[in-house]
């Protein structure tokens, strides 16, 4: 029998209790993305005693992550430790009684089912729409609950999707390609903390079958003090709800092409990008050169050339996954 005394301040809370605490110890959660949301949610759930956490991220810790990605430190950034590994190492020191499984990999249509099949809840810690549509597809297909979280600037959103009712594609039928990202418009760490904590709380409620689970689409603006929530109806024509898992069944996975040169990968992208608007945003954070054929960016340790059709050549990256990360962070998903 596992010793649950370390969770006394939680199990004494009457909505959890000793039975609830034991249930958490038997529970399994996958967190896709170990960034600002993923690290906070992982930290809270590890401390709360969720028995198994799969920590998925393809990226490496950088100095600019430390402002909001709560599990990492300067040594991780100096070493360029994979985020999944660094997160697991820190969490092991916090709770050695649970199982932590770091996965250093892109989350894609080829591995989505393998990485989610054996968990009870999936938490979205990603930063792009494509990944969320994929999580939505795989969770619908496997009838898994998942918890969406988004944060940009001071505006955040959270919604929990259960196997029944509205899905993410009912809420957002098409990818919103604002092209804005935390790299270009910034994000408050208080916001990502709030979003991730709400995601973790929802996860706990799902694992404990709590009737208090809020299934509404909740949004808030921490800077302008706006909190809102709306009901989302299931769309009868939603492809995903009708079993058409477009993103999961994609025949072509966007595998970056190694360019037979030095640490450069071509990422195909998902169609045309508004280079002028992107250049505008990127000018605040690095050097931008723009002409009719390409946008060249260098800054924040990243470098890429973006072409009008959406493809980009990402420079100075060690892996295909790292190239995808740079693309998602600076250009968008």
């Amino acid at each position, binding site marked *: 029998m596992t010793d649950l005394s370390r969770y006394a301040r939680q199990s004494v809370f009457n909505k959890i209790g000793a039975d609830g605490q034991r249930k958490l110890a038997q529970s399994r959660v996958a967190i896709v993305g170990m960034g600002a949301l993923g690290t906070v949610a992982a930290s809270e759930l590890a401390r709360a005693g969720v028995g198994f956490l799969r920590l998925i991220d393809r990226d490496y810790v950088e100095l600019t992550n430390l402002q909001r990605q709560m599990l990492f430190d300067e040594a991780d950034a100096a070493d360029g430790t994979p985020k999944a590994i660094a997160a697991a190492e820190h969490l092991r020191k916090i709770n050695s009684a649970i199982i932590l499984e770091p996965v250093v990999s892109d989350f894609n249509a080829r591995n989505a089912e393998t990485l989610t099949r054996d968990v009870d809840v999936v938490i979205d810690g990603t930063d792009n729409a494509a990944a969320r549509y994929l999580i939505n597809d795989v969770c619908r297909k496997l009838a898994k609950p998942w918890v969406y979280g988004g944060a940009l600037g001071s505006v955040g959103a959270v919604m929990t999707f259960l196997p029944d009712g509205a899905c993410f594609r009912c809420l957002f039928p098409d990818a919103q390609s604002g092209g804005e990202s935390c790299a270009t418009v910034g994000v408050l760490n208080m916001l990502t903390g709030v979003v991730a904590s709400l995601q973790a709380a929802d996860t706990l409620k799902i694992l404990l079958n709590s009737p208090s689970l809020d299934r509404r689409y909740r949004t808030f603006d921490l800077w302008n003090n706006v909190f809102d929530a709306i009901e989302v109806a299931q769309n009868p024509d939603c492809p995903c709800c009708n079993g058409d898992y477009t993103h999961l069944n994609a025949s072509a996975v966007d595998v970056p092409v190694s360019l*037979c*040169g030095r640490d450069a990968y071509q990422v195909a992208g998902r169609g045309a990008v508004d280079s002028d608007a992107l250049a505008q945003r990127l000018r605040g954070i690095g050097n931008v050169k723009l002409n009719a054929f*390409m946008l060249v960016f260098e800054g924040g340790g990243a470098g890429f*050339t973006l*072409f*009008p059709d959406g493809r980009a*050549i990402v420079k100075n990256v060690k892996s295909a996954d790292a190239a995808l990360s740079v693309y998602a962070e600076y250009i968008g998903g």
Partner: protein
Amino acid sequence: MIYLDNAATTHPKPESVYAAADTAARGGGNAGRGAHSLSRAASNAVDDARNRVARLFGVSDYRRVVFTLNTTDALNLAIKGALSDGNHVLISSLEHNSVVRPLEAMRKLGVEYERVPTSPSDGVSADDVRKLLRPNTKMLAVTHISNVTGARNPIAELGALCRERSVLFLLDAAQSAGSAAIDVDAMNVDLLAFPAHKGLYGLQGAGGLYIRDGIDLAPQRHGGTGSHSELRAQPDELPDRYESGTMNVPSLASLAAGVEYVARRGVENIGAHETALANRLIDGLTQVRGVTVYGAKQGANRSGVVSLNIENVAPTDAAAILDGSFDIAARAGLHCAPDAHSALGTLESGGTLRLSVGAFNTDSDIDACLTAIDAIASGAI
């Protein structure tokens, strides 16, 4: 789409090639396995390909042409099958990784290899090879045509030298088979590695190796051959000795059709067509400000591969712009031949932009490409 990446794989293929592959794919049957009509049809398709390839290269006993997965596989068989502890090998400095990496792997087994200093524009000279020959030199392995610089190595002279000194002559014909005349006897080629899907206009998925009579290579793959099934050991007969496992019949059937096309149009004619296009291209490129052309100079002896760079535009960026903005397919980077880029001085800067023509390119393709490069060079930032 204007396709200028024929050095990677030729495109398009003659219609007869697609038809042959389609027939083979629908035909069913496993070549050399069984005596029913479908199996015999597959066997006949492979046999036809072998015979046509043999005739194209002047091979008198067609069984000495063995089919492999691709040129790399053929080179691996030649290098690993022929060499052993204590052997010394000479290569040019224009070699592809498909020659260099197997040799590098063989170093662990006591094989030594050495690069002969090579002109990126004129190839390796027989005199320079002669200076580096040692008593234990077992093999000279060179590419016929550089996949980076378009330079042509003097095969007949190198072959004669190898014959005189009893050195195995391994020719990598990845870039030349189908566009440069090869006669294994006249050129004293002992081992000839070639692809189905480049200048011979077959589909991807097959290559081959010619092995001169009297040379026994250690098989690198063992298994079923459809023959001598009572034997536990790999059979001695060619081609079975080196063809374990099911063959890629659709690719080989397409290869037969491709070779038929090449032979009908004439290897020399195709080569001359490609050379003329490359010369036209270089002619135009030299008039574009900011463009540097590398490797073989204009003239009758260069091949259809042209490497260049545009000032202030990384080669990978230039290729992406040609693709995205001009619908022109080209390849950028090191082209798996880092030594050639060392020789050109383009290794550190990420290689070159490579334009490579094929039998189906036209003058207007070249002119459109020149217009595009001019636009990129003048819009460069």
